[in-house]
C-alpha cells in the first residue's frame, strides 16, 4: 500500500512533562485518513500520555500539533471533539443502565424539533444505521441494556458511537485487551471497517499479531521518544518487538547520538 493521502493529524517534536518527569521527549507522529495507525510501546513508554495530548486531556508543552495541515491548539477534550477527534477509552465509559441507543447518543441526544423532547425514533434509526455501516451483526437489539452485553459487544458499541459523530480521527486504547479470540477478531474487523470509511484510526495495542493484521502503519514509542513510524508492510514481528524493547531494529529506530536532540 502506498501513502496516497496526506496525514490528517500530524505531531512534530511534541514534548510533555509532569513536573520534573519528561514523559514525551520530542515525538513525531502522523495518522492518515482511511488507515489504521498502530501505536505500540512498552508499559510506561508514553502511549497513553501521547493519546491524552491528542485528545486534549493534557496540553502539550512544546512542539507542533497540525490538523488537516494547519496548526491548531487543543486545550481541552471539547476542542478535540470539535476537530472530530474521538477517544474510545480502555475502560469504555458506557452506562450499564442505559441501552445501546441511549449510550451511543449520550451527551448529544437528538431532540424533537417542535416539542424539544428526546427524539427516540430518530436516535434509534441513526444508531441502527451506524451499526449497519460497520456490518455489525453481533448485537441482538439496539434497545438492549449495555449491562447485558459481552466485552466485545460493548467495545462494538463504543466504536460504532464514533461513526455517528462523523469523527475524523478515532483513537482506540487497547480495544482487545480483555477479549477472547473470537471477539478480538470481531473487534479487529470493526477497526478495519472504521478505517475503510475514511476515518484515521489510531490503535494502541500490545498484541503484535493484531497490529500486523489490521494496521497500515506502525508507530513505536520508546521511553518517550518515537523510535520509528513505518509502513506495516515493511515490518515483521521481530522488528516490531525490537523497536518496542530496544528502540531500534537494524537501521530502523533511534540512533544513540541523537539522544536529546529533539526540537
Amino acid at each position, binding site marked *: 500500500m502506498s501513502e496516497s493521502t496526506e496525514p490528517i493529524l500530524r505531531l512534530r517534536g511534541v514534548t510533555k512533562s509532569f513536573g520534573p518527569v519528561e514523559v514525551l521527549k520530542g515525538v513525531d507522529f502522523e495518522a492518515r485518513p482511511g488507515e489504521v495507525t498502530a501505536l505500540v510501546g512498552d508499559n510506561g513508554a508514553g502511549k497513553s500520555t501521547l493519546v491524552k495530548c491528542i485528545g486534549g486531556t493534557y496540553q502539550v508543552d512544546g512542539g507542533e500539533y497540525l490538523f488537516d495541515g494547519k496548526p491548531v491548539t487543543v486545550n481541552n477534550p471539547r476542542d478535540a471533539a470539535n476537530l472530530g477527534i474521538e477517544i474510545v477509552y480502555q475502560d469504555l465509559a458506557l452506562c450499564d443502565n442505559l441501552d445501546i441507543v441511549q449510550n451511543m447518543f449520550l*451527551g448529544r441526544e437528538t431532540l424533537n424539533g417542535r416539542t424539544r423532547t*428526546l427524539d427516540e425514533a430518530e436516535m434509534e434509526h441513526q444508531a441502527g444505521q451506524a451499526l449497519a455501516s460497520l456490518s455489525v*451483526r453481533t448485537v441482538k437489539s439496539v434497545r438492549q441494556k449495555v449491562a447485558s452485553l459481552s466485552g466485545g459487544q460493548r467495545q462494538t458499541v463504543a466504536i460504532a458511537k464514533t461513526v455517528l459523530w462523523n469523527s475524523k480521527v478515532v483513537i482506540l486504547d487497547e480495544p482487545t485487551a480483555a477479549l477472547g479470540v473470537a471477539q478480538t477478531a470481531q473487534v479487529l*474487523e470493526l477497526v478495519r471497517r472504521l478505517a475503510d470509511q475514511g476515518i484515521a484510526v489510531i490503535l494502541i495495542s500490545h498484541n503484535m499479531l493484531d497490529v500486523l493484521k489490521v494496521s497500515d502503519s506502525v508507530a513505536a514509542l520508546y521511553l518517550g521518544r518515537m523510535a520509528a513510524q513505518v509502513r506495516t508492510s515493511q515490518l515483521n514481528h521481530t522488528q516490531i518487538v525490537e523497536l518496542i524493547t530496544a528502540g531500534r531494529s537494524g537501521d530502523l529506530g533511534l540512533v544513540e547520538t541523537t539522544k536529546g536532540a529533539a526540537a
Partner: protein
Amino acid sequence: MSELASDSPSTVSTETSAAGTRDVVADHEAANPAVHVTALIPQTLGATLSSYVRRVRGGETGSVPAVAGAALLMVVFGIAQSSFMTTSNFVQIVQQAAPNTLLAMGLVFVLLLGEIDLSAGVVGSTAAAVAAVLSVKHGMPWYAAILGAAAFGAVSGMVLGWLRAKLNIPSFVVTLSAFIAFQGVQVLIINSKSNGIQISDQTLHNLYFGRLTPAAGWVVLVVSVVLYALVKVVQANARRRKNLANEPFSVLGLRVAAMLVFGGIFVHLMNIDQAVAWQQREGIHQRGVPWSAVIILALVVVLSFVLTKTRYGRHVFAVGGSEEAARRAGIRVLAIRISVFVICSAMAAVSGLVLAGQLGGSNTGDGGGNTLLYAVAAAVIGGTSLMGGRGRVVDAVLGGAVLAILANGVSDLIQGGNAAAYELIIDGAVLLLAAAVDSMSRRAKR
C-alpha cells in the same frame, strides 16, 4: 495503566471468520450483506406477554412485587376484617398514602444517583411551617404560602446538593446533619408556646381533605387516558415513518383498556357518597376523588416526563449509571447532582404541605422520626434501586400504596397495648423484603 475488569466468558455465539486478512473480511461481507440491527420488539400480544414473563424471571422484577404485594395484602386484610373492604376505608387509604408517596416521588431522583436524602421529611415539614407562618401570621393567600414552602424546599435542596456535589461530603453525612439541624429550624420558624400553628385556610386543609366533584373525577380519568393513548399513537407513527419496529396495537389497546377499567373502578369507589341520609338531604356530600390523588397524578405525569422524555432526565440516569461515562460524554455531573436534591426537597415541601393539611397545622416534630425512612421504603418496594441507576416516579406510587394498605390494615388488625410495636416490626420486615428483591434482581442481571 488500568486493566479492564476480567470479562465474563461470552455466551454469544460468534462467527468464526478468522479475520486473518482483509480478503477474508471482504469475502465474508460479500456473503453476508449487512443486516440492520433494530430494536427487538415482540410482534404479537402473546409474544409480548411471554417476553415480559421472561424478563421478570430473569430478575427485572419491576413493579411485580409491589402490585402482587398490594393484591395479597388486600385479600388478607379483606378476609381478616369486615371493615377493610369498605368504600370509606379505601378513601382513607388513598388519602393516608399521599404524604409519603409525594415524599418518595422526589426521593426517586436522589436514589437514581445512588444518593440518599435523610433530611427530606424534616425539610418538608419545615417548609410547611413556613407556609403556615405565611398564611396565619402574615395573612397571605394559600398560593403564596405554597410558593413560599416550595421555594424554601428548593433552596434547602440547593444547599444540600451543593454541599454534596461541590464539597464532596457524602450525602449520608450532609443530610443526616440537615435532618438534625432542620428540626431546630422548624422550632424557630413555628416559634409558638403550643409547639404548633393551626392553619385556617380552607385550601391548605383541602390539600389533604379536598375532593373533586364526581363528574370532575370522570373527566380527569377520561382526559388522562385519551392523552396517554394519543401520545402513544404519535410515538408509534414517528417510529413507523422511520421503519422501526413497533409494539403491536393490541398491547396498546390492552394498556388503555386496563387504565380505563382500573381507573374507572377507582373513580367509581371514590365517588360513592359516604354522607349519611340526612346530610345528603341537606345537600352535604362526602364523595369524589381526593385532591391529593389528583396532585399525585399530575406530579407523576410531570416528573415522569422530565425523567424519561427530556435530555435532563437522560443525564440523571447516566450519572446514576456511571459518573465517569457521563462526565466523558460532556454531562455536567455537578449540576445534575445538585438538581436532584433540589427536586427532592421541593417535593418534600409539597409532601409536608399535604401532611399539614391532614394534621390541620404545622407542629414541631412533624416530618421527623421514621417519616423519611418510610418514603425510602416506598420507593424501594416500588422497584427503585438503592444503588442508583434504576427507578421510576410511579415506583413511589406503587410502594406508597403498599405501605398505606399495610399501615391501615395492620392498625385495625392488631389491637391492644403493643399494637404500635408490632406495626414497626412488620414495616421493617416489609422494607427488608423489598431490599432483598432489589439486591436479588441486581445479582440476576450480572
